[in-house]
């Protein structure tokens, strides 16, 4: 049975939520009553429930199988985190309650801040940003605010070629000209090229470390020193923090600002695209420029600094309504407490071990883009597929039929037909072996010339390949009532009458 749109299932007069009848009152709407109908369909509760249960069954998910999307850190999402996030007194607090009535909430935020600062070895953290990219924006704004406070106008920011697209987009939003720094043959940023581009008009560098090739930037301290020498700041994209938890603190590498994706490293669920949370840790030099609000300990317990004034006068402003993604803070802190100092270190070790295990188990069949040990993800290019007529995309789609979510494809851009595989620490060796077995099976099939099999993959998924070009050429971004009349007709044709 196909699942029609919710709009194609309504019958006027049904209700899915019972509520009291409004008391008749004298309207205060000032004559601005809505007279147009909204156009929403009316359904009963069981219909809505069934609709979304059915939709869900068309999704792949970590809970259902291995999801080795490189750079996305698709690890186990513990259910206890969901449970505590819903406790009465946590999940139901209003953001504008008097702070005297939310001391537990503020303590929680303060406690999470302590964990984040300790893990990164940085003296300050802001909890405002709603996501990784939002955290980047926060970090680079702090950098620009710091330069401005110093009376300096700097115009350029350096970003390695392999960076996430958000890095240049963020720099642009802060008014900086983005300059790409090429990679060396070993997959790290080219230090010489970097040094050459440095100058007094450079505001800073945005470096992902471990980088998007899954490699640790061995020159990181030199990079930090160089950028500091010219008075710039070192922004570190913390997307890959998972790989180094408890093994090295970014603060010890000269980092000035780094966002932390709570939804990656600390396992708040990805939720099909969000919500995330991207707290940013700062060095002493940048801390004063952090956005409001933040929590402080006052005489009568915890307090919230919500305005740019007084102690917060240097703050660059506000990034978000209210106080950040509290729901995600709860989950992340529960995750951290569950791991502790010992578990956090084990995360990094097992994540890196798993990636290297995959790397060596596939590198006779696939070409590792860069030699040697990788960190938490293994990067391959498509040279094995050369001449087979099978692309990275085709291979990925064939993996769907094997019961796996595909790896990240065509990213980073510095590698041809890239396949970036991040297993994370929560996967067992048995699962890795199954994945490796499936990859080897398909690679053999591809090199044996069974091209058509790949071109038509996937075969067993809820949908086969979708026409993405058509979707972009003629965007249909919402349901249009006229089409539904047809759909309803179709439904009734298939039924008896």
């Amino acid at each position: 049975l196909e699942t029609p749109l919710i709009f194609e299932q309504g019958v006027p007069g049904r209700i899915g939520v019972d509520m009291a009848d409004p008391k008749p009152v004298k309207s205060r709407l000032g004559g601005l009553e809505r007279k147009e109908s909204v156009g929403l369909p009316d359904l009963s509760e069981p219909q809505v429930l069934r609709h979304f249960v059915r939709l869900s069954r068309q999704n792949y998910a970590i809970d259902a199988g291995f999801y080795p999307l490189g750079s996305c850190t698709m690890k186990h999402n513990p259910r206890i985190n969901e449970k505590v996030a819903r406790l009465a007194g946590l999940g139901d607090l209003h953001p504008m309650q008097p702070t005297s009535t939310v001391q537990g909430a503020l303590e929680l935020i303060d406690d999470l801040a302590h964990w984040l600062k300790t893990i990164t070895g940085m003296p300050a953290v802001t909890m405002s940003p709603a996501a990784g990219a939002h955290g980047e924006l926060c970090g680079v704004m702090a950098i620009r605010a710091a330069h401005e406070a110093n009376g300096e106008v700097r115009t350029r920011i350096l970003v390695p070629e392999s960076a996430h697209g958000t890095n240049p987009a963020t720099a642009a939003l802060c008014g900086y000209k983005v300059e790409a720094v090429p990679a060396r043959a070993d997959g790290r940023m080219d230090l010489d090229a970097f040094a050459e581009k440095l100058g007094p008009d450079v505001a800073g560098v945005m470096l992902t470390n471990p980088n998007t090739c899954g490699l640790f930037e061995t020159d990181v301290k030199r990079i930090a020193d160089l950028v500091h020498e010219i008075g710039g700041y070192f922004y570190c994209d913390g997307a890959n923090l998972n790989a180094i938890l408890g093994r090295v603190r970014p603060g010890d590498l000269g980092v000035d600002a780094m966002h932390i994706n709570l939804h990656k490293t600390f396992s708040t669920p990805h939720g099909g695209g969000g919500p995330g949370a991207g707290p940013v840790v700062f060095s002493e030099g940048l801390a004063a420029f952090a956005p409001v609000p933040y929590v402080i300990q006052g005489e009568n317990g915890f307090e919230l600094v919500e305005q740019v004034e007084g102690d917060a006068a240097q703050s660059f402003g506000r990034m978000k309504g209210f106080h950040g993604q509290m729901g995600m803070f709860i989950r992340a802190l529960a995750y951290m407490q569950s791991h502790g100092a010992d578990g956090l270190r084990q995360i990094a070790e097992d994540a890196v071990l798993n990636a290297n295990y995959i790397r060596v188990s596939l590198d006779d069949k696939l070409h590792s883009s860069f030699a040697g040990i990788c960190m938490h993800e293994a990067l391959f290019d498509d040279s094995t597929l050369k001449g087979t007529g099978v692309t990275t995309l085709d291979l990925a789609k064939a993996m769907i039929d094997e019961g796996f979510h595909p790896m990240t494809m065509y990213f980073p851009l510095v590698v041809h037909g890239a396949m970036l595989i991040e297993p994370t620490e929560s996967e067992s060796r048995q699962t890795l072996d199954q994945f490796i077995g499936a990859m080897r099976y398909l690679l053999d099939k591809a090199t044996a010339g069974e091209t058509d099999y790949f071109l038509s993959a996937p075969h067993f998924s809820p949908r086969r390949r979708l026409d993405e070009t058509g979707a972009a050429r003629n965007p249909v971004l919402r349901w249009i009532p006229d089409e539904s009349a047809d759909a309803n007709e179709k439904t009734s044709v298939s039924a008896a009458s």
Partner: protein
Amino acid sequence: MRYMPHTATERKEMLARVGVKSIDDLFADIPEEARLTDLLDLPLHESEMVVEKNFRTLAAKNLSPYSTPCFLGAGAYQHHVPSVADHIIQRSEFLTAYTPYQPEISQGTLQALFEFQTQVALITGMEVANASMYDGATSCAEAVLMACRVTRRKKAVISGNLHPHYRDVTRTTLQFTEFETIDLPTAAAGIENFDDHINSDIACVVVQNPDFFGRIQDLTALADKCHEAGVLLVVVVNEVVSLGAIKSPGEMGADIVAGEGQSIGVPLSYGGPYVGLLATRQKFVRQMPGRLCGQTVDQDGKRGFVLTLSTREQHIRREKATSNICTNAGLCSLAFTIHMSLLGEAGFTKLASLNHSQAVTLAEKLEAIDGVSLLNDTFFNEFTLRLPANAAEIVEKLATKGVLGGVPVSRLIPKEPDMANLLLVAATETCSTADMDDFVVALKEVLGC
């Protein structure tokens, strides 16, 4: 540790397969002087039982608005979220999926986003909507950036009665760009006049409806004036339930609607995560930030959905992207979609009527108290009271009596003496008559009358 499956033996065997002697060899690229040898100075791992206790202890230090009369609003509203919504978003297939980059195995997320986009377009009266933003405030800032791109103009006029957080976020977001905001002063007492600020330099006028104080305005004339000057009208909606009762922004002539969707499906959760709404006209869609889900067909000709127009986005356009956003409020938008589906036409409009009738009932009770008056004649489910004393102090006193009696305006607009005695009060379907009466009694006691 319960989340990590490897045993010591497996780790040893796996290291051997990798061809290294010890785990430390895998971290050899880290500069030696920075390598940590000791554990971080943090507690060791805890059992699930202890973690749960820890959070129960923290929760017990807060006053749950669920267990006490609560009249807080100011951009976040207490509503009853049907249990079905929270149940569905906890289903593994929604909770633990990533952004739907592989549409063949992500139709659940994608179809739900398509339904979300349609619902947002319908309630706002606009042609199209995106797949959600972080929250209302960031959505407002993105709407302004978008208006600047669409008009190729650089100045945005911001209403003084826009929620202060939205104003701050917009100003902060624009501060280092080539664009700027013109922030009008707060006009608690009356209707703003934008005439002097509308001209061919201006990209957009941003106005909230109902405004921060709760006042409802007809923006039709303003829209006309804007359009004459090539200016876009950005309408901010921060209590989305109001759209079930009030003429929609689209009908009033809005070009972009930025909204906060928390009221539908999303728990209060001390301020986040929420779900930003962004809707506009079809012709502006290529200047829209954020994700978009579009309808298409698969190779068997079956209807299906994909993320689309990604050429706008940072992972393709990099520094030329419409925004740096690469995530949305996925689960929150799903909860919104489910709750809105449960409501339907009948439920959504009835919920809005019910909220209005609750607020009117409460306003009448409060107005009757000596020295208390209503600042605004028109309102939906939230209004501003003028009290005979400092509102922040009164709110603290009410809290000691177990009543969460509104938000003092001074918390959001500090240091303005005019605002000191103003109190924002909201009433939704969740307040009982007893709650209202408790409030009245407590307020009278606190005011000494």
